């Protein structure tokens, strides 16, 4: 776990932390739909623009579909372009989210994770980001406001790497992080600016000496080859990420990786999850460790590309693995569970596995719920093909 120096920290919401990262990045263009389901990220950033703190061209658009379209257009010219969104806003972008990835545009987009309608719900779950998991974007999930800030900066460098050139979503849990206040240590502006450097223009649309086209017709003759290149770019993201994380560590002292093990050395039972719930899981691990139970946690920082090798390394040979999902995949296994289970197909010693869906539409997840799932594992009561629920009335 990364420590925070309280003397250097400020108490801010996740939205303010991310907006501050965007201020330091100072993109050439930010396009955003300015009302609900938008979050305070864009509100803070719009203030930076109107106060003249940044020189960003801010484009308030009439829908999220247009926001992503404007950002795609800007990024194709070689500009650094960002937006932020949440829930149904992301769903409305869906079509253009795929276009951003297939056009290999290094757009970084913070996503405040909130439930998709219907019924109407504004609270946290991962159904919005999970609906985009096959879109070709790199996806990170932040546990804390500090991570949401750090990952926004780190993502920019990963996205713009020449061998990657992919858009990145930085997911932060709605309300729990976006509206929750906690200490965050900001880097000095000049450190961020030096870390991200100047953007490299690759095939810019406005270079009329070297004309290029974006988004052309691409039928059965080449479409397949282009998709194959996207697969390769994702593999490259896996190769480049550790280098970017190392460079970030040098300037910040904070370590990032594909996954974060917590008290795993001798752990027999391990819980796997995305996002802010990892904090409460660590609390329960500490609590149960005090009572002598060999439990631990594995936080998944990067969900796309999926860090299969790291999952295998940390989970091979454990007695039980419990996976928590904050979204459902109706008619199939929950997304994180499915991915972890599939990764463990080939390990030498497969653990018992259990799938737990929790927290849909902002339903609270209490330490007692997490303990219950661990206790199922400890008593050998995990069934790989059964989906269970935490905090649900049945």
């Amino acid at each position, binding site marked *: 776990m990364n420590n925070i120096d*309280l003397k250097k920290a400020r108490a801010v919401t996740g939205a303010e932390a991310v907006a501050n990262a965007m201020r330091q990045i100072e993109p050439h263009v930010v396009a955003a739909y300015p009302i609900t389901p938008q979050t305070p990220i864009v509100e803070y950033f719009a203030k930076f623009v109107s106060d003249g703190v940044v020189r960003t061209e801010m484009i308030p658009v009439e829908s999220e579909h247009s926001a992503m379209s404007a950002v795609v257009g800007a990024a194709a010219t070689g500009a650094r372009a960002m937006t932020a969104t949440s829930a149904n806003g992301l769903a409305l972008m869906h079509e253009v989210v795929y276009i951003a990835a297939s056009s290999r545009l290094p757009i970084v987009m913070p996503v405040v994770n909130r439930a998709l309608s219907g019924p109407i719900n504004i609270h946290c779950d991962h159904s919005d980001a999970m609906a985009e998991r096959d879109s070709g974007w790199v996806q990170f999930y932040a546990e804390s406001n500090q991570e949401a800030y750090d990952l926004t900066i780190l993502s920019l460098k990963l996205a713009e790497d020449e061998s990657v050139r992919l858009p990145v979503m930085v997911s932060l849990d709605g*309300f729990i992080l976006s*509206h*929750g*206040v906690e200490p965050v240590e900001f880097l000095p502006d000049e450190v961020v600016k030096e870390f991200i450097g100047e953007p490299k223009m690759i095939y810019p649309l406005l270079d009329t000496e070297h004309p290029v086209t974006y988004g052309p017709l691409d039928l059965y003759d080449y479409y397949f080859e282009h998709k194959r290149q996207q697969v390769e770019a994702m593999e490259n993201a896996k190769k480049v990420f550790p280098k970017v994380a190392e460079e970030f560590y040098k300037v910040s002292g904070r370590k990032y990786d594909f996954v974060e093990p917590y008290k795993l050395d001798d752990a027999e039972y391990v819980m796997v999850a995305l996002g802010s719930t990892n*904090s*409460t899981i660590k609390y329960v691990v*500490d*609590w149960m460790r005090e009572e002598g139970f060999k439990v631990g946690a594995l936080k998944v920082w990067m969900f796309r590309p999926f860090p299969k090798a790291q999952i295998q390394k940390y989970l091979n040979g454990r007695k039980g693995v419990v996976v928590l999902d904050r979204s459902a995949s109706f008619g199939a296994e929950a997304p994180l569970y499915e991915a972890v289970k599939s990764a463990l197909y080939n390990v030498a010693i497969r653990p018992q596995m259990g799938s737990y869906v929790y927290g849909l539409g902002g339903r609270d997840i*209490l330490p007692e719920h997490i303990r219950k799932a661990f206790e199922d594992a400890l008593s050998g009561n995990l069934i790989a093909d059964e989906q269970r629920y935490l905090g649900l009335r049945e």
Partner: protein
Amino acid sequence: MPVKYLEIRWHGRAGQGAKSAAQMLAESALEKGKFVQAFPEYGAERTGAPMKAYNRIGDQPILVRAVIEKPDIVIVIDDTLLSSDLISGLDEKEGTLLVNTVRDFSWIRNKTNFKGKICKVSATDIALQEIGRGVPNTVMLGALVKITNVVPLEAIEKRIEKMFLSKFGEDIVAKNKKALKRGFEEVECEEV
């Protein structure tokens, strides 16, 4: 449980400043070297709707992100919200109920059936007299500091300066400080 944090649950109506008060408390405690957390609970957002805000304060990183079900302190900014449900989870031996009201202790006890420590302060009246607006949150912070010593009064005063000085000027800062101090001085408690 491995770590114990000081846990506070605020009840108010949207627009009464519970969220800002929770944030101001978190900022003040951070400046005093504490780990902090402040977060609101939103329903449908509209002025006047009942809402909650939460604080956790501790000497170690705060890991629990759930809402606070067993608070050490319940703060009620609007006494029309008082009921026995409102104070759920508040321990009668260890817990404290702090209420903004002009009414007496027996009225609060009747409304809540709470048998533990109750503190009260006429925060809206004080806010009207000192700030000229019925926003009682700074007064409530003063009262909270008196009964818990969670941060020194000057830490909140410093936050008031940081938040209001450049935006509203010295006059508003002085008025808020006065309101804070009166909350500190005028809060009364009753233990049964």
